[in-house]
């Protein structure tokens, strides 16, 4: 549970000492979070825990907005720049077969250097680390020249960072706060991640006055799509995934086919839709007024706060320039603090995984990186866990990165400890 402190006489030694001291408390808090179920759209209980803890730790302000997001603010001597530390409070539901879990999914057990339970890696370990990183800076009284916001957001796992979107576009905007840098607590294994591929769920709807023709056409389209997902290396290979069997709505007589596809940074969803359309309609004679449309799946969802939102099942690929100032400062800060500082990208091993990064970078133009103690491979899987040592290192690393962005520089001062 201890990050081995290196002897020295500068600020980083102090940060390490304090991070080690806070390790136990942070791990226990993470355990509390895990023990409180919070599937997407039902985050209230966890939100209350977070609000209370931030208040106890002494954040300058603790606010719950109308979407259910909870965030704490630490002010500095200047209002900008503004750094946002963000982790989501919601988790996926534990992988169906509960028998597969060795430790009950909501046990939050701390054993063998690990915290077990659903959401431990994704993203409650990271949330605890970020909350304690902010507290560490406050406690060590290194003054800030800028503002630090630690935000626990709702409705991330159900696909589309609704909580974050509302936080930035409404809540913070109304407070006149413009975020300059964002750090996500998503699982990176303490790597410094600067992006990932995206995914999109398409729905093809078909209709025709002639039901027999429609059935045949549906079969052909389905087969075409299956071929597209299996025939690697062929020209026009579309890399589709999870192509579902056509569903027939007997009353209206139309057909629905759903499938997913990974999105790469250069992908254009509209052009992609065009290609899939052309591919699907191969070997179908264009007779009989066949209606064919292909759209990104959309749905209305209700949040726990009572509000309803229109959700689009699309997560864009995104990437922050790995040589941007944010990445540079973050790497340097981590290296100086003696933390792991390995740049990389999320692999998103399970379909449907994503982060708020695409929204933050593409919609709001906020440079974003990820740095969290969880492991991608453990997330969304049975026997999810996070190592408590990594939580401790994440506290140290995150506070170092934040200080390099909004801390008053500690240059020229050393403590008289003899090295």
């Amino acid at each position, binding site marked *: 549970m201890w990050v081995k402190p290196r002897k020295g006489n500068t600020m980083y030694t102090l940060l390490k000492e304090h991070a080690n*001291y806070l390790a136990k408390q942070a791990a226990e808090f993470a355990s509390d979070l895990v023990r409180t179920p919070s599937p997407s759209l039902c985050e209230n209980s966890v939100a209350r825990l977070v609000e209370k803890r931030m208040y106890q730790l002494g954040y300058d302000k603790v606010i719950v907005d109308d979407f259910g997001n909870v965030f704490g603010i630490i002010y500095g001597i200047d209002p900008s720049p503004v750094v946002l530390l963000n982790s989501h409070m919601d988790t996926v539901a534990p992988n169906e077969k509960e028998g597969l879990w060795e430790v009950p999914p909501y046990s939050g057990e701390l054993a063998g250097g690990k915290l077990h339970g659903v959401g431990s890696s994704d993203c409650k370990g990271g949330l605890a680390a970020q909350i304690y990183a902010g507290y560490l800076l406050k406690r060590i009284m290194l*003054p800030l020249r800028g503002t630090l916001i630690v935000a626990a957001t709702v409705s991330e796992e159900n696909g589309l960072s609704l909580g974050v979107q509302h936080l930035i576009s409404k809540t913070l905007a109304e407070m006149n706060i413009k975020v300059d840098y964002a750090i996500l607590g998503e699982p990176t294994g303490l790597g410094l991640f600067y992006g990932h591929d995206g995914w999109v769920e398409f729905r093809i709807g078909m209709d025709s006055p002639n039901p027999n023709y429609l059935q045949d056409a549906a079969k052909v389209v389905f087969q075409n799509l299956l071929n597209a997902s299996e025939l690697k290396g062929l020209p026009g290979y579309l890399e589709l995934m999870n192509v579902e069997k056509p569903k027939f709505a007997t009353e209206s007589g139309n057909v629905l086919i759903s499938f997913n596809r990974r999105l790469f940074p250069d992908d254009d969803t509209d052009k992609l839709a065009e290609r899939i359309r052309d591919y699907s309609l191969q070997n179908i004679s264009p007779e009989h007024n066949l209606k064919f449309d292909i759209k990104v799946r959309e749905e209305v969802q209700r949040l726990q706060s009572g509000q309803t939102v229109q959700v689009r099942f699309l997560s864009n690929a995104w990437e922050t320039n790995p040589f941007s100032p944010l990445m540079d400062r973050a790497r340097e800060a981590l290296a100086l603090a003696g933390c792991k500082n390995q740049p990389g990208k999320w692999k998103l091993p399970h379909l449907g995984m994503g982060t708020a990064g695409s929204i933050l970078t593409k919609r709001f133009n906020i440079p974003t990186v990820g740095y969290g103690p969880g492991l991608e491979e453990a997330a969304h899987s049975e026997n999810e866990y996070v190592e408590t040592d990594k939580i401790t290192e994440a506290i140290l690393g995150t506070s170092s990165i934040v200080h390099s962005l909004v801390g008053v520089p500690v240059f020229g*001062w050393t403590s008289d400890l003899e090295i």
Partner: protein
Amino acid sequence: MSRLIVLIPEGYFIEYHVYSVESDSVATDGHATKPWEACSLEWTGKIRFRGEGLSLEELRKLIGKYSPEAIAVRILYGGEEFKRTQIYDRSILERLESLAARSPLHIPPSVRLLKALERIVPTPEIYLFFETAFFANLPLGERTYAIDGNLSEAYGEGLGDIRRYGYHGLFHGALAGKIKERGIDARKILSICLEPIPEVAGIYDGKPVTVSGGSTPLEGLPGNSTCGELDPGIILLLEEKKKWGPERINEMLSRKSGVTALVGRNATIAEVLRGGRDFEKASDLLEYRILLSCGAAMSVMGGFDTVAFSGRYVEAADRLAGRLIPKLIGASSAPFHPALFFMQDTLDRLIAESYCRSRLATTMTF
């Protein structure tokens, strides 16, 4: 039994030194020649200062055990706000906090210490001793840098006050006082403080006129691990060629430079000054830099008549004195014998003596 506890916060420790300060107790070592020097050290130790609860309890125990009449706290940086020793009260806390951005490593722990002390009831009287206070009124030419004085507008408030300070004012000031009290005719003192970051000050008629420190302790003489004075062009070069950010450059200049860099391993000023084959390169450089600082002080003072050594490494000063002083005398147009003074007292002792002096001043009747 009247007691004083001297607290010296250092990084994540607080050193404490318990002194008995009875004016009628006589020091047994024959060292004391003045009544206020008759305070004696009873106990010394360290409190680890991380958890508020933890150190508050230990402080409470310490104060409960010794029931001091006063506590003295040494604070490194006081800026222009604190130009002399202060008796603590609430308003001082706010003024101190406003300095936090200028000395981000040292002010906040001092503030936390004072807040913790406030919670101990009854609170003994607290005296604040500032290392920079002695240098608060350095002459304009010495303390001003050759840059635009209004940079805070373009660069931000946290830039701090862009002026020179010394950071061992408690040593230099006490030294000047002791020399005067001993009746040594000294108007122009070269005061050499040998600490992890050494410091040379020129003291003219009891007031400092030059000092090697800068707007932070990093400027000046090379230390155990600090680089001392450096060509600004080097920093710009490191940024340009190595693409290092300022934090990284700071780590190198604060932790890996100084005599450590010259010797090639962790080393202290004391080892280097005592000499030896491994230390020749570092010793030559350090002595040369001290010589330059002394020469600079000599020109401002119009010469010198006393050379004085202090600091925790003062036992290593013998050899230095032997090599340095002939060169200092050699610069003079006429031969003469400067007075030589070695002050062995530790920082905590000097603080205790200063407290005693002021204590006696208020109780003595004439």
